[in-house]
Structure formats: C-alpha cells, structure tokens
C-alpha cells in the first residue's frame, strides 16, 4: 500500500486527469465523497442559521424588549418564528444531514471498501432535494406573514389554518420543506442499506463492519420505518391548510391529537436516528485513541438493534398531558424507562473499552469522551420525564428544554465535532490544528453546561417554556429566576463566539494545514487505507480485501499496536 502512486493528489481536489468542469465536479457530482461534502457544508451553513435564531430569541428572554444587535427588536411573532426555526433547523437541517447524510455518504463506501454507492444518481437527487428544502425553509422568513411559528412539532389546530397561525404561507412552506427533506433522506437511506448489503469488500463479514456503519444502517432503517406515518400526517395537514379538509381541525370534527400520534410515531424514533450514528462515531474514536479492541462488539450491535425496536413503542410519552388514556400513559412510561437500559448499556460498554487502554487525549478523543459524559446527563434527566407522574409537573417547562438539549447537543454538535476533527485528515488531506481544536473544545463544553444547568434549575421551579416576555408573569420573575436566564444567555454568547475558533481552524487548516498522511491516527478501518483525500473511485491501488475485524488494536501477536483490516496474517488468519 504505497502512497507514492498518489502524488498527483497533492493539492486540494486536484484530480490529475479528465478534469470535470466546476459544475460537474462540485454541484452535479455523483461521487459519494462530493455529495457528503455538499451535505456537510449545507449542514454547517444551516447550523449558522440555527445559531443565529437562538441568539436572537435568547437575548429577548434575558433582556426583554431590547433591540438585539444584528436583529433588532424581537416581536412576539418573530419570537415564535425564531424558536420554531431553531428547532426545525437544528434537527432536520443540521443533525440529520451532518450525522447521517454527510457521514453516511462519506464513510460507508470507504469503510466497506467499495468505490461508490450503488445508486449514485439517486444519491445526487437526494442532495438536490435536500438543498431545495433548505432554501424553501430559509425563504419562508421573507414571505408575507413571516416564517411558521407553531413550534417544530407543528401541532394543529394552530398549524392547520392560516387564520389560527397568522402565517399562512409560512406554515405551508415549512411543511413542504419538511416533506421534501424526508423524501431526500428516504433516497439516501435506500442507498445506504443497499450499498452495505451488496457492496462490502470481499472477506468483510457482518461482524467485520465498523460499528459506525452499522449504526448508520440501523438509523436509516429506523428512519424509513417510522417516517411513513409522518408523511401521511404531513399530507393530511397540507390538505387541511390548502384544500379545507378537517382531519385535524376540531371545528370540522377533526382530531388534533391524531397529529400528535402521527408526528411522535416518527418523532421519537428520530431521536435514535440521530443518536445511533453519534454513538457509532464515538465507538470508532474511543477504540483508536485508547488503542484497545471495542469491548463487546456484538453487545453494542444487538443493543443498538434493541434500542431501535423499542424506540417504536415510546412515542406517547410526549403526550402525557394531551388527554390520552392514563392506562396508556402507564404503558408508555414503562417502555420509556425500559429504553434507558440499552442506551446505558452502550455507555457502559464504551467505558469498558476505555478501561485499561492507553488513552490519547487528542481533540477528537476529547469530543468523544465529552459525548459520553454529557449524553449521560441527558439520559438520566430523561428518566424523570419518562415517568408520567413527574412529567405532568415538568411538562412544557425548561426542564424538558434542558433535558433534550443535553441529548441533542451532544448528538448534533459534540458528535459532529468529534467526527469532523477525526476524519478531517481523510476528507481534506490536511491536518487540523490540535491546539486551536482544544481551545474550541473547552470553549464549547464549559459554556454548554452553563447554558443548560440554569435551565434545569428554572424548570424545577416551574418556568414555562412557551413564554415570550417573563415580565408579564411575576411568579416566574421571583428570586433570581431572571438571573439564571441571563446566565444562560451570556453562556450562549460565549459558546457562539467560540464557534468562530472552529470555523477559522477549519478553513485555515483546509487551505494552509500540514499535509495529512494516509493513516495519521494509526487506525484499522478501511478508509485509512485510501489516499488522503481519496480520489474518485476511492482505492486507486485496487479495491481492498478484508481479513479481520475493525478493532484489533494492541494485538499480542503483532509488533505494531494496530492491525489494518486489509492486512493478512503471516500465518493463515485465526478466525
């Protein structure tokens, strides 16, 4: 496996032969790596949108009525639109595209040792639909009435009629953008599963597939099995908005709780759709940087499948106060508490992997460790909310907000930063700056906790989450409550400021960083046997064969502390 043959890939994206035009190469490409980059950069751009919206509405909460620098005065309608857009963007246009679409597209063909997805044109169509959906969503800010303001869950009757939401065009555009985005991920998911089933490198058995690929596959199957009812609900809601039907509008005999069922039947598996890839990323990183075999590979895999199955039976815990039958609430309390067991098991297995390893605290490793610690807090607080008795008190308070940010922030941001810092050398052929990476890490993790621990405290004191100006609620302005809000907002400003460090580090490294070797982390998985960055077709020296599992670090029979999957044993392999 020599690198000499790939000297012609020294410069950024400099393909030596049959140079395609700009449009063909960057915008109309069917190469899985380019599509992954498109998803990644679109996701990063949308993260800026999500970050800007949270900046504006958090400023309003901490300093009500002030003119927010860079935004202006946040009116009540603005506030609703900002909160809605923040939630929708961060989940559907940041977490999904970065964790599943970008990493799935980038890693799956490289990690299973093939040259591209099995349906490359479908893949291109997937990104194009996604891009259109993102444009529609952002454009909805500029239509008469403004963007949709009915929360990312879009509950009817508020969302069902323009007279209720006051954002007729905005709500339709929101709904259309979400539906289009689901179509994009449906195409992507079909591609992922088919590729992994049919295009693995020779010798790669089911249990030689890296955990992150398994996780993306399980997540894709979860997505495809759960999204159908939501698309059905979205079409019904579209009919209510546009054609005047009354599926969800009680004024016409419809049932608004029906939407909640259809939405959360998708919405809860969706949490695991984004969680599992992040869990997989962490598994890859902790094995590489503790130089140890992944503790209990099969347990992680079966646990992930079990989590996926169980995630279809927990959705109504979002509806404990929506008037559902209390007997039903009991059942869903039990299933919700049950699902914490497999997730806790995965965390336990990861800690088992770290135990006794020779740990190297590189930037990606710091992110991976932080993921485990912070997600644990999110998981533990979820147990209070899963119990219907406690949830009746906590429902719609900032306790819920803090809880799901302790799950989603580790997933969407800590997981993504771990992945970007870990695979950056492969993606762009350059090394990122470690020092600035660590500055960014601490500058993100510390303020993150200072944002959401105050929100837990506020939630315990009954702070309701859907309030625009707390000055109208004297009970919620008592003894230091506003101070906690200000603390959270200022921590947010610090966190946002430190993202500049990341962006500068990212782009400076991209253009000026030292050249990355083929396998900078001494990792085993197949993507590190391709040049950095891999050319079109991935493996110019021929597609690899696989002889062993992905996690054979510090093997006693070998001098090096890693054993790439492509290297046969000198004697016939033991397994």
């Amino acid at each position, binding site marked *: 496996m020599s690198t000499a043959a790939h000297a012609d890939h020294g410069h950024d994206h400099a393909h030596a032969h049959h140079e395609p035009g700009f449009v063909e190469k960057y915008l109309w490409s069917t190469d899985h790596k380019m599509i992954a980059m498109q998803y990644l950069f679109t996701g990063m751009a949308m993260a800026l949108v999500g970050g800007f919206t949270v900046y504006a509405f958090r400023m309003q909460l901490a300093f009500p009525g002030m003119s927010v620098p860079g935004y202006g005065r946040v009116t009540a309608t603005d506030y609703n639109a900002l909160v809605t857009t923040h939630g929708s963007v961060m989940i559907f246009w940041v977490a999904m595209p970065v964790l599943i679409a970008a990493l799935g597209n980038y890693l799956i063909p490289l990690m299973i040792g093939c040259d591209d997805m099995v349906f490359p044109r479908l893949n291109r169509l997937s990104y194009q639909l996604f891009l259109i959906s993102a444009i529609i969503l952002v454009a909805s800010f500029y239509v008469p009435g403004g963007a949709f303001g009915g929360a990312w869950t879009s509950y009817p009757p508020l969302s069902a009629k323009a007279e209720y939401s006051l954002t007729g065009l905005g709500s339709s555009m929101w709904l259309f953008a979400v539906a289009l985005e689901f179509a994009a991920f449906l195409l992507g998911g079909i591609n992922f599963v088919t590729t992994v089933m049919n295009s693995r490198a020779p*010798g790669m058995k089911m249990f030689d597939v890296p955990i992150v690929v398994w996780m993306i596959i399980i997540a894709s199957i979860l997505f495809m099995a759960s999204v159908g009812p939501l698309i059905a609900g979205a079409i019904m809601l579209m009919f209510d908005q546009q054609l005047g039907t009354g599926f969800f509008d009680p004024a016409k005999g419809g049932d608004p709780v029906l939407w909640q069922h259809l939405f959360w039947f998708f919405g809860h598996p969706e949490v695991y759709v984004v969680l599992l890839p992040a869990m997989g990323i962490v598994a890859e990183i902790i094995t590489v940087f503790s130089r140890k075999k992944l503790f209990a590979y099969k347990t992680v895999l079966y646990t992930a499948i079990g989590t996926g199955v169980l995630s279809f039976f927990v959705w109504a815990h979002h509806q404990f106060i929506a008037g559902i039958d209390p007997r039903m609430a009991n059942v869903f309390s039990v299933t919700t508490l049950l699902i914490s067991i497999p997730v806790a098991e995965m965390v336990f297995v990861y800690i088992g992997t770290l135990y006794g390893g020779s740990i190297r605290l590189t930037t990606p490793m710091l992110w991976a460790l932080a993921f485990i610690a912070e997600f644990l807090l999110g998981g533990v607080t979820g147990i209070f909310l899963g119990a219907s008795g406690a949830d009746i008190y906590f429902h719609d308070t900032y306790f819920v907000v803090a809880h799901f940010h302790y799950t989603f922030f580790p997933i969407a941001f800590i997981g993504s930063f771990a992945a970007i810092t870990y695979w950056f050398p492969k993606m762009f052929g350059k090394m990122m700056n470690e020092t600035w990476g660590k500055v960014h890490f601490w500058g993100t993790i510390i303020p993150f906790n200072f944002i959401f621990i105050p929100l837990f405290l506020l939630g315990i004191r009954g702070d309701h989450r859907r309030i625009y100006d707390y000055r109208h609620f004297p009970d919620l302005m008592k003894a230091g409550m506003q101070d906690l809000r200000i603390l959270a907002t200022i921590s947010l400003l610090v966190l946002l400021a430190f993202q500049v460090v990341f962006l500068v580090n990212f782009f400076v490294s991209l253009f000026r960083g030292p050249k990355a070797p083929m396998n900078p982390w001494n990792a085993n998985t197949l993507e590190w046997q391709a040049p950095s960055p891999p050319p079109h077709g991935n493996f110019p020296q021929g597609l690899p064969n696989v002889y062993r599992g992905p996690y054979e670090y510090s093997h006693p029979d070998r001098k090096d502390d890693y054993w790439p999957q492509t290297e046969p044993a000198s004697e016939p392999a033991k397994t």
Partner: protein
Amino acid sequence: MSLATAQPEVMPAGVDRTANRAVVPNAVLGMLIFAVAEVMFFVGLISAFTISRSGAMPGTWPMPGQPMLPKDATLVNTVALVLSGFVLLGAQVAWAKKRPVAKWLVVAAWVLGAAFVALQGREWAQLLAAGLTLTSSRLGAFFYLIVGMHGLHAIAALGGLAVAAAQLLRGTMKGGLFFGVQVFWYFVVLMWPIIYARVYF
C-alpha cells in the same frame, strides 16, 4: 464502477472473492426498502382513518346525508387488480424459463392494472356526483386521500410496467428494472385489499 474489475491483488488462501456477491439484486433490495417505507405510509393513513372513525359520536358514522361507498361494485376493481398481480407473477415465472409468452403476460398485467385505475376513476365520478367530496365530510376526505394516494402509486407503477413491457417487446430487458418494477407492482396490488377492507367496510 469500473474500478471494481481492476483488482490486481492475488487472492491468498482463506478469502473467497465471491463471498459477498449480492444475494438480492440492488434494484430489488432498493425497491423492497422503499416498499417498506411506503407500507408504513399507508399504515399511517389507514390507522388515522380507523382512529378518526372510532372517535365519531354514536349515530354519526356512516355520515348522515353522505353516500355509502360502493363496496360491491368495487369488488370488480379489486379482482382486476389482484388478477393483474398473479399474471405478473406468471410473467416472472415464464421469463425465468425464457418463454416468449412472458412479454405478453406483462402486457396483460398492464391492461388489468389500467382497467383497475379506469374503474376507480369512474367510481370517483359517481361518488362526486352523489355529493361525496373532499370537504363534504371526514369520510370523503379520508376516502379521496387514501384511495387517491393508492391510485397515484398505481399510475406510477403502471408507468414502470409500461417501460418494462416495452423493453421486453424490444428484447432489450436485462432484468434489474423488471425485478424492481415487479416489487413495486406487488406492493400496489397487496396494499389494495387491505385498503378495500379497512375503508369500504
């Protein structure tokens, strides 16, 4: 794609290069996964209808003043569609045995499928004339939504079937497209009796 053939390495003992040959062709697997998502889509629609109907006040279902759905007449449509599924299955068997009758069986399956869509269209026209519209009642809304969505799928599948038939008649069919179209058509066929039983009765 072409790189897959440029495999210079000598295979050492113990690794079987053919070990991971696709058990299920790409087109079939892709379409099967798509069909799973589609089945869940209809499951969502049908369960929404069932929940909505079960929550109706006593005496308001079937809706007063609204026509009953023609369950007997629709039996003819149902038979046509199910028959079309069996004919396409026969076409697959014949094609696998390289019998020339395969292409005519595909054409026959298309004709039966088209008859189903045409009969459905006639039924819609009659129901609209009888006062059942999208906004006249929840029954109408659900009926046109669920049956209409199935109809759209049937029309799309007929398009695919037409392409497959054309390729078979021209003798250019290699297989992938035919298998994929079959999976989609069986999905359309198998979904219908469930819709018929859950919506019309």
